Each structure stands twice: as structure tokens, then as C-alpha cells.
């Protein structure tokens, strides 16, 4: 796609948007541009790839159903008027929101554009070399650095004229430890809407800890299978908030008749001490932004307050049908992907308990740490959340290190079994979320430590 200034894009988009009268139909158009640098370093591999700038446009209209076209050639702009239906008196089919104007680029502490590529590569090489040389049991130290820059320009026929430029950086470190034929690893990841300051946290002491964690995994045992009292770290708490609970709150599932939370609004869904939010407007998080891909301003969505379900997660369509107030959750992976209501930064608010006290109350249980992956079950509310590791707890103390653990069961049962939430500051972890298996968007999830009365675990 040829490059144009954002003022030219605004001007082109407004001209097209003006040809669709809001009284007759809703129309919006989005420009999406994405560039990235990816550096992967291991002892035998160095892959460096640059995505110079991939950009495209998606335009759509609502006339009772959605029609959408997406392309990557600016010259195709002229086809929009003929490709999308032009109707009369269908404007009220979808709720109208106030138009607004916004234009912002995030400027991190150390701007990535001011750091030469060589320095990024060198930093990645240094970390890899440090870990590789740390201990002979580290067979493969793998380091992955990825920075992305996303520009979204949005215009609609409600008067929206919006632009945001967001840099995101992530760093993954995987030292693979080997002893005889046994191979194991732990991992570290960090990320955010930030700049080169991401490396400030990666001190030598931190690297030693990361390497030791992997080496320790060589002595980890399989987790027991059965029902146990549990302590979950903030990452696992977030995985439950997002994967098991949050996907059922996405209001398209309500419209589909496919959510276990369909008749639960204003009802008790969790223990009284639980408050859960989704907040795209948080600063500097991987899942943050100023407006969504439908021009709705990012806000804060109080999903659960003191155990009571207060809100679903809306896009324009579902907010319109369900009379909801959207908080900026209509998201696309890119111009080539469709919109769904999606989470952003989803977390448990901190509680009143000391972690030490929570632990001391567990005579025999399991602590699950380092969230790994999870899968949604919006219809039935089933839970599958898998960790990278955990610990047995005996008489309030962490004892044997465990390999990955799968936490399963009904999520509402798990939420109702939350007996304590620690007062530690909310800790968010970045990741990528799919709607089912597709349409990947950057998100975070987290919270503080949770104590669960009883839940089913097994080796994961």
C-alpha cells in the first residue's frame, strides 16, 4: 500500500464516509498499519526479521446485517461506494454514539525508533550468551525480542475522527535445562506499551534466577491428580478471570444464546470478596488502547463487584441489542480480520489478605504458579487453565516443586470457592488471546494471589 499522511487518510475517509448518511445506515472505515522487529537468538540460531509496514483498510456498513470489505491497495478506496449496499432508513437498526476526535502517539520512556537495530540485536545476544554460559545444564538458552508499532485511523459517519499509534514490546526468555535424557524449562516474559526500557528489569540477578528456575525444573515431579485446597499466583488468577470467566461475558455469546452467564446479570457469580474488571484504558499495558476498532473510547468495565455480575463486554452490535454501555471492546486482529467483543486487561482487584496468612491456613494443598495457557468454554462455563509449574504446600510451606498443572472444573464453582484474595498490587501478564482459535489480539490478565477452598487439578 502506498504511504499517505494521516491528514490525507482522514480526508479520503471522510469523503467516503459522508456518502453514507447516518440516518440511512451506519458506516465506518479503518486504516490499520503494523510494523515489527523480531529477534530470536539461541546457540545455533539467530533469526532477525523486520516487517517494514503492512497496512490495509477495512470499510463496513450496517443495514440490518453487516457488509464488510478489506483490501490493501489505496486505489481500491474508490470501490467502496459500489461494493457496500446503499440503503434508506436503516440508520436506527443500530444504536448511535457521539462522534469524537482524538489523535495520539504513545511516546515511551526510551523511544524504540531512537535505538539502532544493532543495539537491539546486541542486547538480545548478551542475554542469550549470559544464560548459555551460566551453567552447563543449560542446554539451549533461547531469547526472543519482539517490538510492534500499530497505527489505527478510524472515521465513521457519526463524526469520529480518531488516530492512535501504539508501540508494544515483548521479551521471552527460555533457558532449556538438560540432565541425561531429561529436558525441562521454565520461562520468563515481560512486555507492555513501552520502549527499550524493557531491558532495565533484566538484570544479571534476574537472569540467574530465570536460569535457576529452569534447572530446578529438572527435579520437578508430576502434580497429583484430585481435589485440593489451592493458592493461585496472580498469573493463574488472571487466566481464570480472562479465559474461563471473561469469554462467557463477551456479549456476542449472549446474543448467540451461548453463554453460561446469560441470565446471571445482577446475580451472585463469585464469592463476596471478588471484584473483576476489564479496563482497556489502563496505561502502558499490552492490552491497552485509547479507542477500539469501532471508534468507542476505551473505558473501565466493572464486570463483577463483590461477587455480583454487573456487566457484559460489548461491541457496538451487542451493546445496541442489549442496551449496554460499550467500554471499547470491539476489536480486530487486523484489517483482514473481523470484529468481536474482546477483552483487554482483565483482572481481579486486590483483596485484604496477607499472602503469608493465606498460605499458613493451607495444611495440605497446592500452589499453582506461572500461567501457561487456557481455553474458553462460553456455553458451559468449563475451566481449563494450565500452569508451567507449582508447589505442594504442607503446613503452610511450599515444598516439592511440581511440573505443569491443569486446573479444571466449572468456573463459577471455582469463583464461589475463593476464600481469600491477597492485598498485593494487581500484577498483570501480557499475552495473546484468540476468539476460539482465531482472531488474535494483545491482552493482559492478572490480579493478586487467590486462595481456593477446593478445586480439581491434574498433571498438565
Amino acid at each position, binding site marked *: *500500500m*502506498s504511504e499517505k499522511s494521516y491528514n490525507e487518510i482522514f480526508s479520503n475517509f471522510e469523503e467516503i464516509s459522508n456518502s453514507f448518511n447516518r440516518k440511512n445506515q451506519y458506516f465506518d472505515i479503518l486504516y490499520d498499519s503494523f510494523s515489527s522487529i*523480531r529477534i*530470536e537468538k539461541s*546457540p*545455533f*540460531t539467530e*533469526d*532477525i*526479521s*523486520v*516487517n*517494514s*509496514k*503492512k*497496512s490495509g483498510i477495512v470499510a463496513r456498513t450496517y443495514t440490518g*446485517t*453487516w*457488509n*464488510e470489505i*478489506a*483490501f*490493501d491497495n489505496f486505489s481500491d478506496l474508490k470501490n467502496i461506494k459500489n*461494493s457496500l449496499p446503499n440503503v434508506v432508513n436503516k440508520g436506527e437498526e443500530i444504536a448511535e454514539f457521539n462522534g469524537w476526535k482524538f489523535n495520539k502517539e504513545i511516546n515511551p520512556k526510551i523511544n524504540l525508533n531512537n535505538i539502532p*537495530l544493532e543495539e537491539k540485536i546486541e542486547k538480545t545476544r548478551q542475554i542469550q550468551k549470559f544464560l548459555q554460559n551460566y551453567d552447563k545444564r543449560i*542446554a*539451549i538458552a533461547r531469547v526472543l525480542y519482539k517490538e510492534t508499532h500499530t497505527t489505527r485511523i478510524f472515521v465513521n459517519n457519526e463524526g469520529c475522527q480518531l488516530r492512535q499509534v501504539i508501540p508494544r514490546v515483548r521479551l521471552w526468555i527460555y533457558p532449556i535445562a538438560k540432565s541425561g535424557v531429561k*529436558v*525441562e*524449562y521454565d520461562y520468563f516474559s515481560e512486555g507492555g506499551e513501552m520502549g527499550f526500557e524493557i531491558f532495565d528489569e533484566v538484570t544479571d540477578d534476574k537472569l540467574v534466577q530465570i536460569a535457576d528456575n529452569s534447572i530446578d525444573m529438572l527435579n520437578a515431579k508430576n502434580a497429583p*491428580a*484430585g481435589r485440593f485446597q489451592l493458592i493461585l499466583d496472580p498469573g493463574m488468577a488472571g487466566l481464570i478471570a480472562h479465559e474461563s470467566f471473561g469469554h462467557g461475558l463477551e456479549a456476542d*455469546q449472549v*446474543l*448467540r*444464546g*451461548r453463554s*453460561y452467564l446469560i441470565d446471571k446479570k445482577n446475580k451472585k457469580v463469585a464469592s463476596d470478596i471478588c471484584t473483576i474488571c476489564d479496563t482497556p484504558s489502563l496505561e502502558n499495558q499490552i492490552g491497552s488502547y485509547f479507542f477500539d476498532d469501532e471508534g468507542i473510547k476505551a473505558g473501565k468495565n466493572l464486570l463483577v463487584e463483590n461477587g455480583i455480575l454487573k456487566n457484559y463486554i460489548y461491541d457496538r452490535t451487542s451493546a445496541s441489542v442489549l442496551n449496554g454501555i460499550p467500554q471499547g471492546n470491539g476489536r480486530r486482529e487486523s484489517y*483482514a480480520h*473481523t470484529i468481536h467483543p474482546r477483552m483487554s486487561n482483565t483482572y481481579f482487584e486486590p483483596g485484604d489478605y496477607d499472602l503469608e496468612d493465606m498460605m499458613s491456613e493451607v495444611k495440605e494443598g497446592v500452589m499453582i504458579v506461572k500461567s501457561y*495457557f*487456557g*481455553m474458553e468454554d462460553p*456455553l*458451559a462455563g*468449563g*475451566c481449563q487453565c*494450565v500452569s508451567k509449574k507449582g508447589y505442594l504446600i504442607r503446613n503452610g510451606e511450599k515444598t516439592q516443586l511440581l*511440573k*505443569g*498443572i*491443569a486446573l479444571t*472444573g*466449572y468456573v463459577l464453582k471455582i469463583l464461589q470457592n475463593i476464600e481469600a484474595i491477597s492485598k498485593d498490587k494487581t500484577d498483570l501478564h501480557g499475552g495473546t488471546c484468540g476468539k*476460539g*482459535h*482465531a482472531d488474535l489480539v494483545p491482552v493482559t490478565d492478572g490480579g493478586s494471589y487467590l486462595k481456593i477452598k477446593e478445586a*480439581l487439578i491434574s*498433571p*498438565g
Partner: protein
Amino acid sequence: MSNEKIELIEKVLRANKVQEYEIYLTERKAYESIFLKEKVDKERDVSSFDYVLRILNQRGNKTGIGIVKGNSLKPQEIEHNIDTCNKLSKINISSKYFFPSKSPAQKVSTFDKNIIDDPLNIKNDLVKELLSEIQQKNDVTPTFGRFRIHIDNKYLRNSNSIDIETQKTYFFIEFSLKAQQMGKLSEFWPFIFIKDRKQLDFPKRIEKWARLAQDTLKAKLPKPSKDAIVIFSPQVLHDAINPVVELHASGKAFHEKVSQFNMNEEVTSDNISMYDDGLLEGCLAVNGWDGEGTPHQRNAIIKKGSFQQTLLDQKHAILEDTKSTGNGLKSVDGSIINGISNLEISPGNMTLDEMVSNIDQGYFIEAFSDLNPSELTGDFGAEIRNGYYIKNGKIDTPIKLGNVSGNVINMIKNCLYISKEREFFANNLLPYMAFKNLTISS
């Protein structure tokens, strides 16, 4: 048109006197209908293209590889991308690498001409067919769905005389069918890429999906067992076996000394034979060549339990002083991944019914919520979404929730039975397989 695009990029490469280069250009079109319950709620037409440049910089026994991806054909943008790629090739330090040279690739069928000629009408006809089939099922209702036709054109040209192209058509279906009775709800939620039109077979597919949704309504929690016999469906095997074997059979894993496989040693039960086959028609990744332009071939990975062959991309072939086996996959970022093209497991000697009849007490798993084993260690634990007990040689009560856990590397050494029946699932052609010594918890 794409040849013009490649010519344009190559012209700038030559003008910049770039000696060793590769251009990998992809054009994609997708036509999608998205359903809300049983009506079409959204229609989407998407077209996109991008190209990946790779430039090599030879430095003795090392090679620098620059990789840049873009989708602008503006001359100054191409120039900028080439500059960046050149710069990267000077910074990067990789083991010795050179592009493959031209070799004859086998012709395989990768596209349906009717779809190329009239994708939108074919999509609309198939959507009608799909909806009509679903509407005939009184005991289930759709909650949402997506149906898509894809047309991809891929072009690869390098400075070593490779100049090839492929056109590919395929489908994507995601559908949730819900069953409901006395306030109880259940669903079957398939998500699948399908290569050929004849594999769509809506009547058979919808019949099976509806039955699974209905049966799950009556599902119970499975009883725990520490030594269970479990039959896995082709879908489950795709998620379980493909990623683990892909890693441990790769030249990369051997080079890094993390593979659990040893050449000519028993790595599975002797009833298992597995092949990597990029030429396997009906599988999603069928193509005459891999992501580096090396011709695809049929590679025996495991024969009767014995590990036969590492899968090599160009880099690991050069390291081993041999030839690539056509296992260089082009990643989204443009780098090369050493992996499986299509995975085929040979059929067994009994039907699925006969397999079931051989099991007194066991479990049959059609789908997990997400079976995502650690490729490196093989460990897995996953929640059952749709499954059944096997009792006295017969499929018995449906089961749901609870967890199956094990280790794929150990599991494939404990394979009891393999079915004669096989199914295409994305880039796999797989039978049903029964394994012992798995753990069920609930």
C-alpha cells in the same frame, strides 16, 4: 499481476546489485459468511498481499541472512526494504546457508478451478447447503458459525534460478451446535480448515456434530483412573502428536541435542508408521515445494515403531552435509521453520468398532477443550469436552469435564490399536488410536 509485482521487486534488487536474494510473494483472497444462530449476520470479502525478501551475505563459513516483509510496491518503499534487508544480512550471523537451486517438483493438485472462477457464488451455494443441512436437525440449534473460502497464490523466486508458483483453494468452518433439554445445555464446537470440496460432506459432518452435541447433554463426569485405555479421535491426535513429533523429528532438535528420538531406535509401538508428505493430496499443506522452494517428498519418519529419518530444511541439511527433505516452512515473520508439511499415520488392521470391542473398560475422546502438549517434554493435561465411556466392548455413557493427562512421547510407545478408518484433519491424515497407561482425573 503477481509476476509483474515480482518483476518490479527483482528489478530493484538487481539495480542494487544484490547477489543472493529470494522473493516470496503471497496474494490472499477470502470470502466469508458469519452466522448468528441460523441467519447470515455478516458478509466479508478480504484481499491482501505481502512479500518477504531474504538477502544473504556470505562470510567464510558463516552466512548473514536478512529478512524483511512488506506490502508496499512504491519504488522508494521497495528500495527501503532492500536497504533494511541488506543491512540485516550484514549484522546477522547464521550458520552457512545458501538458497536451494532449481530441481523438478512433482505436480500435485492444489486448487479447484471452479472456485477460482466463481468464488462468491460457490461460497453462497455452500452456505445455503450448510444451513439447510443444519435446519433439518430438530434436536440441535446453531448459536453461531463461520464459513470461508480461501484462495491463496504463492510465488517464489530466488537468485539461484528457482521461479515457481502455486495456487491453492481451501475452506474454513467453525460452527457451534447447541443441544438443550430441561434447562441443560451442551454443544459441539468444531473449528477446522478443509482442503477439498468433497471433504466438506455436510450431511455426514452435521449428522456427527449434532449427535455429539446431543450426547454431551447426557454426559457425566468421568471416573478417575491411573491406568486408563483411551481412544483418541483424529482431531485429538492432530493436536497431540503433530507438534511433538514435529519437534523431535526435526533436524533442528537433533542439532540442538534435545530430540528424544534416536535413529533406527524404537520410539513408538511397532504398530505405528508415520510419514511427512507435502505431496499428500487432500491435506491442507499439499504443495509441490516447501517454503524455501525445495521439492516436497514423502519422508518416512517412523516405520513400525523405528525412527527412520530426520526432517531437514535447507539450513540443517547444509549442517549435516546432505539435502533438504523439503521441511522448510515459511513462518508468518518470513523466517524458516524446520517442521512437518503434512503428517500421515498408516491405518491399522481393525475397524474402529473392532477396536472398541477389544476394550472392556476405557474412554473414547472426540474433543478436548484444548490439547496443547509441551512440544519439548511431551507432557499434557486437557479437559474433556466430548467423550464416552467404553464398557464391555461398547460405547457407553457420554462423558465431559474431568481431565486426561499423560506424556505424548511415552503415549506413542503404548499404542494398543489403530483403526483402518482415517480422516483428513487440516494438514493431517490420521486414524483413531488407542493408548494405555493414561491418567483420568475428575
